């Protein structure tokens, strides 16, 4: 396993990029720490696959360098990088047995047969497929085949990193749980450096130690799931993470209060006088329905029972505000205000988070 460094890295698919907009991946400096599990999260076209392909060597960046343990690998071919990759669709040899599929990368590199036998047995145990080792891959279910792909990715002990490109997309919800949990335990047990690309926030948040959120070719935030949830650095992160995403409304600042559509909201702390368009962001989890004259006046439009909680869609001066309520909560039509938990309120200037005065940077 290795530390992977991105040094001034950027990529444009155009031969002569003229401005930032021409870059699919905008300039990036970053260390992927040895043994950590990362997720690259973003919508289609945000640059996450471009970045993954540069790490694996399928694509050469138009600018900057990529280093493995401080050794320049920018132009090294994929085969020299010792990287294992698992793709969206399982890649297995149908005519081979599960055992031969797992052994394939080792045989390819001329490993000792005795070692291969032991190692394949270990891997089969890890992915819980010991009983099927002598079955042909043909006829196995999609999730069993994807388990083989995962196992084959881990069979070589000398890989620098494991890259996963949307590996659970074709898997049914119930099996997703099983595979993801297995992957997570394997990471806990063996400490591989793992980079996992997905557009699915649940997969990213549950899998990774650190989530890298990408938007329009740029990393907008890298942080733990808790940081992304509690202090989204950009309104895009607030929107993209969470179901529904963060409520965002225009605001003015007055000391330790925000004025939203003529209503005063206590923030509990000051934010100075940031320049630009000021917005208040608060997640539905930190928003509650109320009666009386606190908070903001709203009208309940719709209550969605989504099982373990309710999503209340409310109208505030033409803007939709979402509230998450408990499964058993009684949503009376008399509820005509919403109030915010100040601990869950963030302030944004031109879409970037403003740190409250006194917050350690």
């Amino acid at each position: 396993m290795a530390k992977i460094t991105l040094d001034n890295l950027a990529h444009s698919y155009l031969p002569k990029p003229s401005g930032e907009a021409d870059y699919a991946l905008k300039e990036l400096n970053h260390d992927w720490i040895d043994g950590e599990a990362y997720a690259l999260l973003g919508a289609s076209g945000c640059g996450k696959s471009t970045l993954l392909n540069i790490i694996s060597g399928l694509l050469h960046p138009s600018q900057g360098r990529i280093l493995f343990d401080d050794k320049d690998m920018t132009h090294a071919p994929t085969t020299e990088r010792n990287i294992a990759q698992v793709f969206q669709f399982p890649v297995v040899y149908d005519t081979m047995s599960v055992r031969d599929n797992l052994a394939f990368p080792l045989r390819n590199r001329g490993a000792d047969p005795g070692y291969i036998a032991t190692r394949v047995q270990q891997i089969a145990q890890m992915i819980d497929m010991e009983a099927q080792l002598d079955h042909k891959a043909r006829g196995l279910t999609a999730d069993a085949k994807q388990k083989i792909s995962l196992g084959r990715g881990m069979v070589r002990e000398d890989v620098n990193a494991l890259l996963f490109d949307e590996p659970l997309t074709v898997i049914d919800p119930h099996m997703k749980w099983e595979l993801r949990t297995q992957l997570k335990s394997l990471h806990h047990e063996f400490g591989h450096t793992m980079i996992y690309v997905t557009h699915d926030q649940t997969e990213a948040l549950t899998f990774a130690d650190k989530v890298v959120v990408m938007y329009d070719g740029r990393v907008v935030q890298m942080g733990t799931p808790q940081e992304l949830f509690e202090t989204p650095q950009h309104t895009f992160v607030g929107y993209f993470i969470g179901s529904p995403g963060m409520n965002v409304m225009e605001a003015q600042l007055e000391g330790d209060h925000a004025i939203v559509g003529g209503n005063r909201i206590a923030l509990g702390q000051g934010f100075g006088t940031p320049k630009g368009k000021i917005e208040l962001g608060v997640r539905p989890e930190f928003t509650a329905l109320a009666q009386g004259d606190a908070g903001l006046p709203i009208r309940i439009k719709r209550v969605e029972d989504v099982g373990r909680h309710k999503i209340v869609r409310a109208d505030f001066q033409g803007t939709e505000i979402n509230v998450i309520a408990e499964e058993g909560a009684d949503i009376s039509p008399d509820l005509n205000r919403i109030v915010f938990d100040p601990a869950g309120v963030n302030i944004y200037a031109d879409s970037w988070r403003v740190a409250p005065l006194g917050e350690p940077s």
Partner: protein
Amino acid sequence: MSLVLEGVSKIMGGETHIHPTDLELSSGTMNVLLGPTSSGKTSLMRLMAGLDVPNTGKVFWGGKDVTGMRVQDRGVAMVYQQFINYPSMTVYENIASPMRLLGQSKAEIDAAVRKAADLMKLSEMLDRKPLELSGGQQQRCALARALVKDAGLVLLDEPLANLDYKLREELRAEIPKIFEEAGSIFVYATTEPEEALLLGGNTATMWEGRITQFDKTPTVYRQPVDATTARVFSDPPMNFLSVRKAGERVEFGEGQAAPAYGAFAGLADGDYTAGFRPNHLELAKQTGDSMQFTGTLNVTEITGSETFVHLDHHGEAWVGLVHGVRNLEIGSPLTVYLDPKHVYIFGQDGTSVAAASYATAA
């Protein structure tokens, strides 16, 4: 209008895809078919549409027997997982195409296309070709085409499965609103419990070619008729525990027992399976009635707002979902609590013996 299936079944190549099934759907309703891959959702839709003729049984449309009638003559619109548009036509022409086939007037077509495009947020893109659109826009184009057809029956087969998570979330919220107005019968197939809940309406849970339950979506979710339905309609998966009711006690695991509170109190002595959802497991004792279990913590997954705990409870894999960020020691024993009001009890054959009391009380 209503669509009635009466004992329809489908056998292909000696394999039963749909066991004899009865179902009645009425106009202006959203009906979700929820089940894993290969549980029969698409097969059942094909029978509804008339793309396949059932081996047994009949299909009635507005009281009229339409079994064997060609799909072209039925007024059916279908949207598939793969976005299907005509690549050489503009978005406008794509949406207009079914109405053109029906020979409607230019003015009628124009009004309908613009209305559908507006609902699907495609008004700005009417002059573009489908391949110039994002995946979400392409699928909205296919949905708009299904809408203008003004079909009595609209079948949506995992229409959002190929879209990004966030887009899916937005379209899921929009689709019921759009279709409520249209007055057709909507049938929507999905593998995801969360999607069924967000769409609302009615849900039919499917398993191995059978509908296991059909009712209002929250009713199927909270009062499943059997363990299979409960399993199909839980994500994360429902947890199960084998129990024996003996007098005033419930026995489980290796010699453990709890007082028979809640639904357990009224049970006859014997063996049962208890089921409960991950979000009802708690890390702190909330009431005096709570049952207590200790297992080994295998994995935690922290989403930022919640923590999933994966537990090995005497060989059974359990999942718990608790609020907040919990940093717990992997590999250590973890004690969890369960209020009996959240417990479903199933008999030896999997049939529900008692629904969780919190669900029936509401």
